[in-house]
């Protein structure tokens, strides 16, 4: 089921993964790692993400679930943008339900594929 990795260029990229659903997190982590990425996390919440950001070398990018069960992920986006870390949303929400100021960020619909993530991250680079 793994994506063909031939065109996926995530080799050596450090990617922070924030996803509250364990199964999806596991699945995505496995796929990202298969594509050569170094996965930071996954973590289910903002707190965990902040801990990682403060203790590990900065990631190149972050893949964020928007709805983290109890919280929305947006406060984290602010921090990531401040640190110039690229952000990709992974969500089931339509674009119109995302706050205006975050709509310019790439938004991938679940279920995700590594190819989509790689494309989103490689875009505008």
């Amino acid at each position, binding site marked *: *089921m793994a994506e063909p990795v031939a065109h996926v260029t995530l080799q050596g990229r450090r990617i922070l993964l924030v996803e*509250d*659903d*364990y*199964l*999806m*997190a*596991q*699945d995505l982590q*496995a796929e990202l790692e298969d594509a050569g990425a170094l996965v930071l996390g*996954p973590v*289910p919440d903002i707190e965990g993400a902040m801990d990682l950001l403060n203790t590990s070398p900065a990631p190149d990018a972050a893949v964020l679930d*928007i*709805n983290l*069960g*109890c*919280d*929305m992920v947006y406060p984290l986006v602010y921090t990531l943008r401040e640190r110039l870390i690229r952000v990709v949303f992974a*969500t*089931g*929400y*339509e674009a*119109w*339900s*995302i*706050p205006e100021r975050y709509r310019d960020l790439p938004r991938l*619909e*679940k*279920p*995700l594929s590594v190819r989509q993530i790689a494309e989103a991250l490689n875009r505008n680079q």
Partner: protein
Amino acid sequence: MTTRNTSSAWPPGDSEMARRIREHDWTATPLGPVEGWPERLKVVAELMLASPRVSTMVVGPERVLLYNDTAARLFGARHPGALGRPHAEALPEGDPAVAPLYDRAFAGEAIDVPAQPASASEAGGEVWDGVLTPVWDGAGGVLAVHGFATEVGARFRAQAFLLRLSDALRAEPDVDAVADRALRMLSDELRLDRCCISLYRPDEEEAVFPYQVGNDTVPPLPPTVRLSDFPEVYEQALHGTFVIDDDVEGRGLPESERAKSKALGMRAMLASTIRRGEGRAPTSLMAVSSRARRWTPEEIALVEEAAERTWAAMERARAEAALRGSEAKFRTLFDAIDEGLAIQELVYDNQGEIIDVIFREVNAAYERQSGLHDVIGRSLFDVLPRVEDYWVDLYRELVRTGRPVRVQHYQQDVDGWFDVYFSPVGEGGRFVAHVFNNITERKRAEAALRDSEERQAFLLALGDAMRVQTSAEEVVETAARLLGLQLKASRVAFGEFDDEHDLVHIRRGWTAEGAETHPATLRQSDFLGPLLDELRAGVTVCFDDVGEPPYARPDLEALAAIGVRAGLSVPLIDGGRLALNLMVHNHEPYPWTDAEVALTQETAERTWAAMARARAEAALRDSEVRYRSLFESMDQGYALGDVIFDEAGHAVDVIYLEANPAAARILGVDIAGRRMSEIADWELAWYEHWGRVARTGQPERREDFANATGQWFDFYLFKPDPEDASSPRVAVLFEDVTERRTAEDRLRASEERFRAIVQTAADHAIFTTDAAGRIETWPAGAQEVFGWSAEEAVGQPVGMTFTPEDREAGQPAKERQEARENGHAPDVRWHQRKDGSRVFIEGMTRPLTGPDGRVTGFLKVGQDVTERRATEEALRSSEARFRQFGEASADVLWIRDAESLAFEYVSPAFEEIYGTKLEDILGGNHVRRWADLILPEDRDKALEALRQVREGEHVLHAFRILRPDGQVCWIRDTDFPLLDEAGRVQRIAGIGHDATAEVELQDRLRVLVAELQHRSRNLVGVVKGVTEKTFATAETLDDFRARFRPRLDALARVNGLLSRLEDGDRITFDQLLQTELQAHGIADGDGHGQQISLRGPKGIRLRSATVQTFALALHELATNALKYGALSKPEGHLEVKWSLVPGQETEQRLRVDWRESGVPVLHPDGAPNEAAINGQPQRRRQGYGRELIERALPYQLKAQTTYELTPDGVRCTIIVPVSSTLDVAFSSQGDPDG
């Protein structure tokens, strides 16, 4: 020293003096033979002989003289006898002068003897510089003194000449004179035959000789010489001083040039050339001799120096000439400008204080403007003795700041005003220029203006002062005093002419302190003459000086007799004769100005007027005393006035002179002193009444209505003095008779109205009955309304007009009774017509009374309102229906006036929907009160909708309101215009619907849709994750299927549970557990099963976000239990216990204990000895259920879990957060908008 001498022959040399010393017999001298002379002496003697200059030696105490050839020439006749003899004998003339010098030299001193005139005999006028040097013997003694002298006379002469030359040239006024003078002086000094200045013009290839002097031996040089004729001379002259001693010798000149020079008469020549700068032509000063001449170095130097000085002097003269030209121009300008210009030099003392200011330059205008003459070289303090210190301060300030200063200043020395502009000139504060204008004229004009202002001020003061005076005497006195003070006169008086007695009575006037008082009377005949004639002609008389005795005229003499030297007199002509005069007298001659004359005239005019007023007032006061009480007590209005006629003789207005209080009361205003036209807008006729009485003297009584005041007046106009036909004075006595008149009018009008109504009102039945109710009169209106003719009706009882029911009820009698008692009785009921139809009458029955007060009959007035009533009835029922409809409506129905937008109708639903009482919205400004309820952001749109509807559009719009209870509601309004018959928008109306629920539903649907998407996408993600996991551990496709299907089913179950949830509901743990166990066939619908026991409270609500994973975990536990655990064998048992336990802080958590027992574990899930495959045993090979419990639940749910495999079976504990009251429903988990 070309001749060689023998050694024995001393001294050597072939000069005359060497020879003579050799040949001299020295034995006879104190020196003895030459052989015996000391060597030192001989050496010095040899030096002496060799010197080309004057050189001498005196030897020994005898001072024997030796000398050389040059000295020999100087000694003249003393030579050769002087040789070898003592100095005193040898040169007796010079010795006394030089002997003391020799004494000092022999004492060992070397002496410088400057500018010593030589002995008079030998060398007339020659001057020498000498040095005396001791010649030592080597043993401390002086053998001899060596003398050495240089002739310096030529140098002295040259210097003296040059000094004279410079002085002379400096005095010459112009270039030509300078040149001429220089040439002459040089020519004389050097005894030249011709001397000239030549200018070379290389461009024209020529030299010119503008200046030359000379004698006949050398003819004058031609004005120009071609340079090509003297190329060599020119060439050499350019490069330095060109000298020709003798043209025969030449200076390497070609033969042709020598010949040409000779042709010009030149033999010897000296030319000193001066070149100044590249651009300027060289100039030579040429000295020419007709004979061969050896020019000495001194002569050459002299010519060179003279050339320099001459050239410099010519340059100076040229510059001065230019300067003079420029000065002349400047001077012309200086003198031509209109402003006075002066340049002054400031003189300072040692402390740097300005002590004097000297005029250095002034222009013509200065003299003209300032009136000062011959000021140049004089001190400012001398020219203007009364100059103030402030000028010096001004100069000081000027010098200090270096900035120009402008001042306006009155200079009393010259009695003028000046506008002066001071400016420093040059550096050092030495000179100051000032430019000034005499602005005296302007100042005078300003002063005149001020005079005029003063005059106005005076007249104002005069007017004020006189107004408060009540008697003519006081007026006169006040005017006299003020005028006298203003004019600084000696006295001011008023004369009253009494022609009958040939007298002038002098009224009280004013006399200055120390001035003579005026006689009380004068005899008119004493003053006969031009002055009195003029006064009588009404002309103001003015005289500056009556003169000294003998007087020219008797009138002047009479004036002088009463102390008048200068005077002014203004006459008042009254009735053609001189009545009064105002006199201003001065004891000294005085030049009256026009302004003063005018002022006096003005004062006189005003005084006359004030006197007249004062007299009139006095008369009035008398009159007032007499009549005041009468006037004031009178009820009748009284007024006295003068009629004003226009040119055509029509009365156009009246000035009220006086009026009594009653007049003011009647007219409502105080009229005294005012014009009639000011009181009201009277018709012309009113003025004509006054005019007629004034003209004819005939009194008039009238009664008239005045539209102007709305009053009836009864008035009596009369002339107080009927004899005086010319007097416009008329008095009036008047009363306001309005009340009487209107009462009469009302009566008359009422009768007329009545008649008109009765006869013309068709829908009014107006008729009378007698006291018993029999019809007496039956006019057309009654006939019309009831149908009976007059014949049919008159005499019939009034009851026939009533309905049978009313008749039976005795209504006609009751009505009459009521009318009798109350004075009227309403009659509003159905009546019956002749044809039996009914007519509704609104009317009144009144009693008619006779003079004695008894009721003689009744008047019935009624209007047929049947039709109106029907219409109103219909309208009322329509309105009622509409109102019912509006009041039943859940929506707000409203109607507004299109113009004012005020509500005409608002249905009661308004209160429900807007949460506001109707009376709150219907007070004040309806629109604003309504708009205030609308949220500010929607307000403009809502108001705009109103405007659109008013324009005739139908508008559907929605807006939010904030109800007073804080609730925000959506209102959807359907608004439309209500048109009148002409199609104009008369009203606007609308239906307001509370759309809050709909809007909220819409919003909620949006959220739900968003959530549904989120959830379904998530679900796919979870399914994908499960698939991957399952796939990773499946060995075959069947194996995959076997594992995957149940998991998918579990997901489907929990999603089924979730989808059935109502808003705010949660899945409870027991529900979840039971569903899962039931699906595996372990438990039935009530949670019972043979091998299981479930214990725990129902209704523990789970967080929706957790249920999916939780369900999967339970599913795996159950599956494992069935496959490998307690439920795989009949003897096994599963116990699930759950309860709420305290979590962090106030949070509560669900604790679940899963206990399997009775069956040893066959498949130890996640056992440590499980083989690792492809290096990732934890992830790939760990049992899925265990992974979910140990990892997924803590990860996702912050759960605390344990999972043990005991010999008895699986023991698993799960502690998870539960839904709290704060935990919101999934549908709004997180706000997508926020």
